[in-house]
């Protein structure tokens, strides 16, 4: 039970919860039971069926409604006299500015994406409000405390970012199933059903560019009098047959790789059925566009089953046909959506056919959907535990009990003495560009890169600013906002397309740019260094930002289940999907905890702590950290009870 002082602090507190999803539902319940009386909650999401297994404040009948609002109603049923203020909105809305944040004693995050987390971190820093941050994936989770000037901020340590792949791995030399998924989802699906004008290269790179480019002109367009079945087979033969043949001509590529096998419909499927009209009639019985399914039509029921190459080919042709017959109006503007059954079927089959061609093991629709949709594994128990830990930390923050703050990591197995791992928070990172004012350095070709590249790839993607303002000395180069004059908007738009050195106030080597986001109250300086050449594979953006903590290319592994996706790379997709409904992203800074152990104490690991610690960290780190881990872990201090306070090697 809470002490009198705790209760007083709780009763007087005004707290902001960001996120009413998996962690949020548990958190709101635990806050209410613990005696919190003034809770504000922001969530832009609406309720989905796949939330119901853990977001226990929601029912089937609430599907489609605001999470923040429904969560409030549900909690008021057992604690009617407390104040819960819901906002069905994006936390990045300008309404939630620094002044808004300043009214709270503490902010509690239960978010599902890096972008929003960084945004809230900055607003907490700017408003001086402490932040308790959290995340879960399957049985793993963590809670961290961020108080300006006392502990590190959320961005002091590197964060995992969605993994990206070199273009040619996707277009020409896939070696993992995820490469085939990315190809099917981002290239083929988009080419056929999305924006036709996107510049993606679906044709295998070939030394003989001229021969394929002519072909590629209109190959994806359905010809005026072309039968849909014929069209599907032509697409199939082009992308799985012809393109592979072209690629095979480049002997250099295949010297050290297995040669792919071109696949043609005539080899995989029986000849085109004569009575196509019969098929069409059967297919047209379903009317609701969301329930259109090639699987159902073909009698494939279990999404966990592995389809043969023939079955995949049938699903491919059927799904393509159904898009044209049932959902023609949407063609040209479709984007991949994990909740779109037909899209998932199409992507699964296309990825599998490509996988078959390249000798990569095939996957079930269930697995493919998980990979394509970046679906994060989630269970109620982890969220409940994490929410309990958030409330414990929130209470310490409210009592300003700095010495007791802990970051806690939730481990998967209790095989040893560990299950929850409490760690003392770290001091702020002095070179963090967010919470200290350390300038950054950017190497860039100022004669080739445009301001647009700088804005998109650095300011937005890397620095996470939403409403940037860019200045060179006193000259404004770029700005966004509602209150701009028309000529200013035109001016900035024109600037975007100029290369840096040709801007009205030229940016060259030695220039110092000031980049600022007024909403986040974040300002940083960037020293520009001109560089002529970049490595196409390693530095595809043609720019290198330093002084900034780059994302670890996190490769998460899940080893919980036999049936779970074997390569469940939740973070591995070309595009981050911030609208995903789950709690993304375990923070991968454990390696730092361990490798910098001589000044940091792992305060509470009992004497048998061993493989669990290193396993979790081992799993969460990049290869380069593995070696480090080995050399440094023996310096970790184990703060045991009186009888054991010796150094313990955690390996």
């Amino acid at each position, binding site marked *: 039970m809470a002490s009198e002082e705790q209760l007083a602090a709780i009763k007087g507190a005004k707290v902001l919860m960001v996120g009413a999803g998996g962690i949020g539902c548990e958190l709101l319940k635990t806050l209410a*039971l*613990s005696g919190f009386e003034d809770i504000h909650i922001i969530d832009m999401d609406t309720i989905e069926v*796949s939330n119901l297994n853990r977001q226990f404040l929601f029912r089937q009948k609430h599907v489609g409604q605001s999470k923040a609002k429904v969560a409030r109603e549900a909690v008021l049923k057992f604690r009617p006299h407390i104040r819960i203020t819901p906002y069905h909105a994006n936390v990045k809305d300008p309404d939630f500015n620094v002044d808004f944040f300043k009214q709270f004693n503490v902010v509690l995050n239960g978010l599902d994406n890096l972008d929003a987390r960084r945004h809230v971190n900055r607003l907490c820093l700017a408003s001086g409000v402490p932040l308790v941050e959290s995340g879960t994936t399957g049985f793993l989770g963590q809670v961290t405390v961020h108080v300006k000037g006392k502990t590190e901020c959320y961005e002091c340590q590197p964060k995992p970012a969605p993994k990206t792949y070199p273009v040619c791995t996707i277009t020409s030399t896939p070696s993992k199933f995820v490469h085939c998924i990315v190809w099917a989802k981002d290239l083929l699906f988009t080419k056929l059903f999305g924006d036709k004008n996107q510049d993606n290269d679906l044709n295998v790179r070939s030394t003989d560019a001229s021969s394929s480019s002519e072909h590629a002109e209109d190959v994806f367009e359905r010809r005026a009098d072309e039968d849909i079945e014929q069209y599907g087979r032509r697409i199939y033969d082009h992308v799985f047959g012809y393109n592979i043949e072209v690629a095979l001509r480049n002997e250099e590529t295949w010297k050290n790789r297995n040669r792919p096998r071109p696949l043609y419909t005539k080899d995989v499927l029986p000849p085109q059925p004569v009575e196509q009209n019969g098929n069409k009639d059967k297919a047209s019985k379903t009317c609701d566009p969301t329930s259109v399914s090639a699987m159902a039509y073909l009698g494939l029921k279990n999404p966990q089953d592995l389809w043969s190459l023939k079955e995949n080919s049938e699903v491919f042709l059927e799904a393509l046909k159904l898009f044209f017959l049932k959902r023609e109006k949407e063609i040209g503007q479709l984007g991949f959506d994990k909740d779109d059954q037909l899209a998932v079927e199409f992507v699964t089959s296309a990825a599998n056919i490509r996988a078959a061609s390249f000798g990569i093991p095939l996957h079930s629709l*269930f697995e493919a959907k998980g990979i394509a949709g970046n679906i994060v594994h989630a269970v109620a*128990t982890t969220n*409940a535990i994490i929410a309990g830990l958030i409330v414990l930390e929130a209470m310490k923050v409210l009592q300003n009990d700095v010495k007791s703050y802990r970051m806690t990591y939730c481990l998967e197995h*209790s095989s*040893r003495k560990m299950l929850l791992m409490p760690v003392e928070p770290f001091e702020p990172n002095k070179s963090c560009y967010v919470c200290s004012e350390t300038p950054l350095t950017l190497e860039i070709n100022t004669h080739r890169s445009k301001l647009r590249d700088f804005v998109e790839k650095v300011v937005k993607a890397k620095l996470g600013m939403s409403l940037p303002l860019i200045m060179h000395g006193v000259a404004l180069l770029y700005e966004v906002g509602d209150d701009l004059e028309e000529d200013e908007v035109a001016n900035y738009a024109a600037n975007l397309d100029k290369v840096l050195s040709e801007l009205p106030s030229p940016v060259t080597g030695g220039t110092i740019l000031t980049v600022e986001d007024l909403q986040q109250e974040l300002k940083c300086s960037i020293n520009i260094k001109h560089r002529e050449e970049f490595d196409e594979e390693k530095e595809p953006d043609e720019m290198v930002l330093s002084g900034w903590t780059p994302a670890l290319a996190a490769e998460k592994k899940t080893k*919980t289940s036999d049936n779970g996706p074997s390569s469940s790379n939740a973070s591995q997709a070309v595009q981050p999907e911030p609208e995903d409904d789950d709690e993304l992203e375990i923070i991968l800074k454990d390696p730092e905890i361990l490798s910098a152990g001589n000044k940091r104490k792992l305060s509470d690991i009992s004497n048998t702590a061993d493989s669990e610690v290193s396993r979790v960290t081992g799993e969460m780190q990049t290869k380069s950290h593995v070696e480090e881990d080995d050399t440094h872990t023996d310096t970790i201090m184990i703060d045991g009870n009186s009888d054991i306070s010796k150094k313990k090697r955690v390996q």
Partner: protein
Amino acid sequence: MGKECEELTEQETAIYDRQIRVWGVDAQRRLSKSHIFVSGLKGTVVEFCKNIVLAGVGSLTLNDDRFVTEELLSANFLVPSDQNVTRGKSLAELCCESPKDFNPMVSVSVNLPLIFLGDLASFDVEFFQKFDAVVISCCSLLTKKSVNAKCRKLPRRVAFDHVECRDSCGEIFVDLQNYSYSKKKNEETIECQLHYPSFEEATEVPWRSLPKRMSKLYFAMRVIERFEVLEKRNPIDTSADDLPNVLKLRKELCEAQWINESQIPDSLLERLLASKHEFPPVCAIVGGVLGQEVIKAISGKGDPLKNFFFFDATDGKVIIEDISNVNS
């Protein structure tokens, strides 16, 4: 898993999608066929009930015929606050409706009132036969031993769990008898075997033979357990006023067991004795861990806890102790 296994329905697949991605279809199938019994519906068990119902067990049977008091509801989110609804009903009856709502695919029911069956300790062995896991809380030492012993008498394995939260501390005891399970290690699935002692066997292990760094909570809980027996108290019916007598008992026990009294600090005993209200964040954490353990026990996947779990929110420490008879 053979084809003969029943397949999950489309509804189950849709609702359980995210957790099937954690533990697999096979585990989900086993869960949906399992039957769970819980007794003592205070905060931690209520958390557990929510977790296990969301996970999609086949059925949940609730047992608690106490009438509702403000104290009993301090960490309960299953009972609506409407006073009219709560009058004249047992705690189990009041807790029964919400879990049905959380997951309509789970059958949630109230066990027959104890006037027909007597105290939990007097339930016969056959009563427990229909369950896969029996989770009890808020009960006497006698009841713990008796229910645990009955679970062990049954021809098929019934998992037994006892959980208790006091102040900001929690204890879980697990008995899975002879338990085999699979786990993944380096991409390989390996079969493992564990042998559990009963609660009685575990708590009879001489204290001086336990590891030096044994959780202080273990000893403190045993002292209070014994105190309640000697004083014929209802479970968790102690106050700070009991401290002098408990300290006396501690002295006796420590002398008899040859351990230093400093292993069981006064301050810890005082906290555990004084607290009647539960501490909701701790209920969430301990109830979450218990939920995971029961899910593991039923699905046969992953390393289970053996056999005591301790959590203390004041230092955030979690300690797992394997307290087994050295001879077994």
